[in-house]
């Protein structure tokens, strides 16, 4: 190494020190959460930062106080149903806007995009009354239906449909393929990265949704994981070890999905942004 290289290397030190601090602050609370899930409540309050041996005991405490299995089941059903339906409805709409383009469809798109500006708070009470009228309080449909069609997901699919070669569509029509078959057999398989990216953001949003399920799932038997951990703190004595275990369990699915799909997530977005 020449002295110039050493000098350049030294100049890099503050940058890496800064990044290390930022990364530590970012991961710190997550590390604390994971470690605390294995410690007793007293150890958590004593700020023990090393893994303990109370994982099983915390799990039993948690099961004794909360119906974790039911909450996991409801969260999974809600999030999976939302994601699947949202991908189908939004991708077919995005494809429709782009492939069967017309002036009036553009106008409709513009109107739908206005919906992005509507805060959820402004629709929450009438939505609650709407579902109450149809006797759908505590039902999966009430959780899923408002989350299926979002203007942004439609935009995302329309944007990726733009890069889908129209010659393929023409050729498929010549071969006598129906319009729906073209969509399912040609478009869906080619757009896998976009579907992956859309699935990640939709699943995370649905899994983590708190306010609306809290409003519409009145019966405690139907509670989701975020509701469970929120209710956990309602008691007089909080078992912090068990609480942190519940928080960890509630966070695991989104963290796992994030890591599994990280690669296609980035690829999907790059395709969309281009």
């Amino acid at each position, binding site marked *: 190494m020449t002295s110039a290289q050493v000098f350049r290397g030294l100049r890099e030190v503050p940058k890496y020190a800064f990044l290390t601090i930022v990364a530590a602050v970012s991961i710190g609370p997550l590390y*604390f959460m994971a470690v605390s899930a294995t410690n007793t409540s007293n150890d958590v309050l004593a700020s023990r930062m090393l893994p303990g041996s109370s994982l099983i005991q915390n799990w039993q405490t948690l099961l004794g106080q909360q119906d974790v299995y039911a909450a996991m089941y409801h969260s999974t059903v809600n999030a999976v149903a939302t994601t699947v339906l949202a991908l189908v409805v939004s991708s*077919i709409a995005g494809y*429709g806007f782009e492939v069967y383009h017309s002036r009036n*469809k553009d106008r409709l798109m513009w109107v739908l995009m206005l919906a992005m500006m509507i805060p959820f708070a402004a629709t929450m009470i009438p939505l609650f009354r*709407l579902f109450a009228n149809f006797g759908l309080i505590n039902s999966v449909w009430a959780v899923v239906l*408002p989350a299926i*069609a979002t203007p942004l997901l439609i935009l995302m699919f329309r944007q990726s449909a733009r890069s889908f070669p129209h010659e393929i569509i023409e050729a498929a029509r010549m071969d006598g393929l129906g319009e729906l078959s073209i969509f399912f057999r040609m478009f869906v398989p080619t757009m896998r990265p976009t579907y992956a990216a859309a699935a990640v953001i939709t699943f995370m949003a649905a899994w983590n949704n708190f*306010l609306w399920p809290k409003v519409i799932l009145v019966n405690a038997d139907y509670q989701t994981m975020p509701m469970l951990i929120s209710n956990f703190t309602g008691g007089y004595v909080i078992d912090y070890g068990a609480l942190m275990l519940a928080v960890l369990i509630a966070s695991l699915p*989104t963290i796992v999905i*994030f890591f599994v799909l990280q690669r296609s997530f980035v690829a999907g977005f790059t395709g969309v942004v281009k």
Partner: protein
Amino acid sequence: MTTPAALTELGDTKKSMKRPKGPSPKLSPAARRRSLTGWAFLLPAAALIGIMMFWPMFQALILSFKTGRGTNLAFADPLWFNYTRMLHDEVFIQTIKTTMLYLVIQVPIMLISALVLANILNNPRLRFKGFWRTAIFLPAAISLVSYSLVFRTIFATDGLVNDWLLALHLIDGPVNWLGQPGTARMVIILGLLWRWTGYNMIFYLAGLQNIDPTTIEAAKIDGAGPLRTFFSVTIPQLKPMILLTVIMSINGTLQMFDESFNLTQGGPANTSMTMSHYLYKVSFQNNPNFGYGAALSYVILIMVAILAAIQMKVGDKRD
């Protein structure tokens, strides 16, 4: 959730609106059938957005002129009763102030940090890039309720932060972080910064990767230093992305609920409560009042609309 797609799309839609009309207003049978197929493809999404968003928004307006308890509602006399009631509602005025405080302090700090981090991570010579990016983005994978409870545990009177500060002799006795108005709000702001900075950084990284490197090279050849290049070449090209993140953050802050509800429970004495949290309390707790809640929701809607409109205008002017 918002995606970078929105940004490129906003511009594109304007363009396609100006597209010339088709060659002939009369369509061939095959073309007409295809156009109908297209409409059929849009129908489910359009119907859902209409029923789940536009219709309730309209209903909320009517509801905001009614009063009563529970489902027993009648038009108020005078009609604007709910709106005048707000002017004397000290708790609501407090929640507006608190929400604005979060907005003014947290959003600029978060977006500037995200921009700086994205700029550092975009350097092709940086080592362990994947690690830094994952580490900084990871908080965004955690639910708002989860992180609120982790922060609540860390900032408890007998929690981690007090233990460490005491060990370092930075404080004399444990601080009741969540029990005092100033510190309770500060903890919420710290939580928001922790959860959302990495999220916004990803948007800036995507934006930076779309910048043509030759423009940066050209600036260097013209003798611009790194700071000058950053402010005169990089920032202007990132402007659409910056605009998007600003709108998203303002929108998100104005609608904030989970942190206020789970981290501080709005306390002490409602000083850290957000507008949405108060709206929830009015509409669904104690004596539910849907009419007043709907009026409150319209104030939030108008605030979001005004701020978004200002942002669009400001963003346009700089072009």
